[in-house]
């Protein structure tokens, strides 16, 4: 359907998109089904594989929607439909590794999770007749190490991070050089490779304490280097959300600045700040490289964070694979078990963060 616009013969006929040919509304669903069936049938002949099937279906669908739209509609609409298909496919593509990774850890690790795995350290037994070393997997030393190291890191990072955020939001003038420098450095600090933080803690302790200075404290310092910028960032955001009116009302009543900050500003922002801190803990609890460098790793039980190597779950998941004991199968099992335990802890922390944000949110009246 064309209508000519204007009087001059030089004007080209303009097509109206309202009356142009359209593909039927559910064409996308039908084409998707058709490509799934067709590629599935073709694959059945040569051997079925779900991954190849998904890829083939996606490719076939993109081609089909592009061609049919180009034939019935026009090139511009065809491009639009192809772009829509591709963008949707990329999103599905991102969900696959997430589901696959979590599923793999669950399947491989679930067999390891038992009370004895959590409550015992791994024990090796030597059988003199067969000359074999068998090992009962255990992760108690890693569970204890994880909580101690992460706990100390939190104790170091939270005061520093929170106070620095208060300085940036409440005290520093927008033009202050210190403020600009610190904001910039916090930005850059979030990008420090985690292994470099581990090397820093190791260097610090070997230079100060002496060689063989592996300890949980050292690992905790490495983790706080990673954690402080996260805490500053999230606390800063939360403090900025507190309305200026609240502060001014407090000043008007003659309350001093520090008391205003503690009793009014922090009180208002605390749920958000706690959420941010819990999320920061969830982030660093899974760090492997810095702990591995600064606290080394051990199969022995060591609850003293100030002396000797300590183990965490993340490090056990790594060393169980890369530096296994004599009984390789059992070491690998320990790796998967602790990986699953770690994922559970991380998910728990994430849930706690959400719950805190919801329960302690300031009551709106």
């Amino acid at each position, binding site marked *: 359907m064309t209508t000519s616009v204007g009087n001059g013969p030089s004007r080209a006929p303009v097509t109206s998109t309202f009356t142009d040919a359209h593909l039927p509304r559910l064409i996308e669903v039908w084409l998707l089904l058709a490509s799934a069936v067709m590629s599935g049938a073709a694959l059945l002949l040569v051997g079925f594989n779900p*991954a190849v099937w998904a890829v083939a279906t996606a490719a076939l669908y993109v081609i089909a929607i592009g061609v049919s739209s180009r034939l019935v509609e026009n090139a511009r609409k065809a491009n639009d439909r192809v*772009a*829509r298909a591709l*963008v*949707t496919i*990329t*999103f599905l593509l991102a969900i696959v590794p*997430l589901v*696959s990774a979590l599923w*793999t*850890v669950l399947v*491989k690790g679930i067999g390891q999770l038992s009370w004895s795995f959590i409550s015992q350290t791994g024990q090796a037994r030597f059988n003199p007749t067969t000359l074999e070393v068998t090992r009962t997997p255990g992760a108690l030393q890693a569970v204890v190490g994880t909580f101690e190291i992460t706990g100390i890191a939190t104790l170091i990072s939270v005061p*520093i991070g929170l*106070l*620095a955020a*208060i300085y940036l939001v*409440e005290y*520093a*003038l*927008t033009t202050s050089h*210190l403020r600009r420098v*610190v904001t910039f450095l*916090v930005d*850059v*600090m979030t*990008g*420090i490779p*985690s*292994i*470099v*933080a581990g*090397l*820093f803690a*190791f260097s*610090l302790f070997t*230079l100060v304490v002496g060689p063989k200075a592996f300890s949980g404290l050292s690992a905790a310092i490495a983790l706080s280097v990673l954690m*402080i910028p996260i805490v500053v960032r999230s606390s800063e955001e939360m403090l900025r959300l507190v309305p200026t009116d609240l*502060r*001014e009302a407090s*000043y008007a009543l*003659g309350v*001093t600045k*520090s*008391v205003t*900050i503690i009793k009014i500003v922090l009180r208002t922002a605390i749920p958000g700040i706690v959420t941010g801190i819990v999320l920061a803990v*969830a*982030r660093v*609890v899974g760090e*492997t*490289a810095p702990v591995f460098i600064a606290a080394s790793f051990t199969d022995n039980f060591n609850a003293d964070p100030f002396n000797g190597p300590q183990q965490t779950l*993340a490090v056990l*998941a*790594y060393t169980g*694979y*890369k530096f296994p004991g004599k009984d390789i199968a059992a070491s690998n099992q320990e790796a*998967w078990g602790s*990986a699953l335990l*770690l*994922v559970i802890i991380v998910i728990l922390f*994430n849930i706690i963060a959400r719950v805190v944000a919801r329960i302690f949110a300031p009551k709106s009246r």
Partner: protein
Amino acid sequence: MSDSKIVDTAARSSTASAKSAPLEGRRARRRASTLSTGDRVFLGFTTGSALLIMLILAGVAIFLIVKALPAIVADWPTDPELHAGPTLAFGNFWAYVAPLLWGTLWVSAIAIVIATPVAIGIALFISHYSPRRLAGILGSLVDLLAAVPSVVFGLWGIIVIRPFLRPLGDFLNHYLGWIPIFAGQPSSTGSTILAGSVVLAVMILPIITSISREVFLQTPRLNEEAALALGATQWEMIRVAVFPYARSGMVSAILLGLGRALGETMAIALIISPSIVFSVRILTEGGNSQTIAANIALNFPIATSLQRDALIGTGLLLFVVSFGVNILARYILGATGPGAASRRARREKKAALSA
């Protein structure tokens, strides 16, 4: 006391322009002189924490330099410690670190090439294609990828991605083996750079996605509607209204992703079977370039004291490189990114008000 408070809030809420700098100084002095003890202590603590952050960052650089220096200046072929073990084959520190740096950049580059189109696609899907109500949930689903510990992705890469990519590797090697990247004897285990980079790409997806998504969402609504009103399809609207606006934001998102990829340790250490060489091959068993971070993680437990210093030296270089990449990314985002113009306008307006 209340008098000083008023001055205080006035100083805080108005922004001093360059012209009123002396006034600012007077205000600050006046404020300091009338602060109560509690106030002064609290101010001291907060300022101290801010300064401590600068100290920590400086400390990281200084301690790494001090610790690495002996290995950097040592004469490697004659040193009994360095002429052994993992550092045996190298004449000096730079000969040791150069191939590692190459490997780090190469592996990260491949990961970026894989991750960027996917990440931009996801960001577009969440910001412009998905139903508005679902956008938040879908966004947090992608953010969940960032919450999964890297060691878990490493283990997943070993048992899922390695075998999964082997047929693809064989295919590329067989038909496209004349391209240097795909050349060589294909790996039988799948512990290749390709597998490592794919896992790395998955790990940097969330950071690129979340920044691009934010930038896409900040596209002025009027620009988008103007494009649509002129008859553009959704894709044309994105091309003419969203992408030009978001370009610098996308570039810095990719750079931040690169910064993350450079320092990523576990995925590479667990998956790739490495050698310290200059190689572009991504499908072979023996010719996989090693990265700095993975090399440290693999050799640190078995290294002697001076060898550790050498490893710390390589870590120092990694620190410098990723520091540079991050600064560049922040600079681009801050100087030209969306919001920069409005921030500047706000600053100027405030300055005009206080003047």
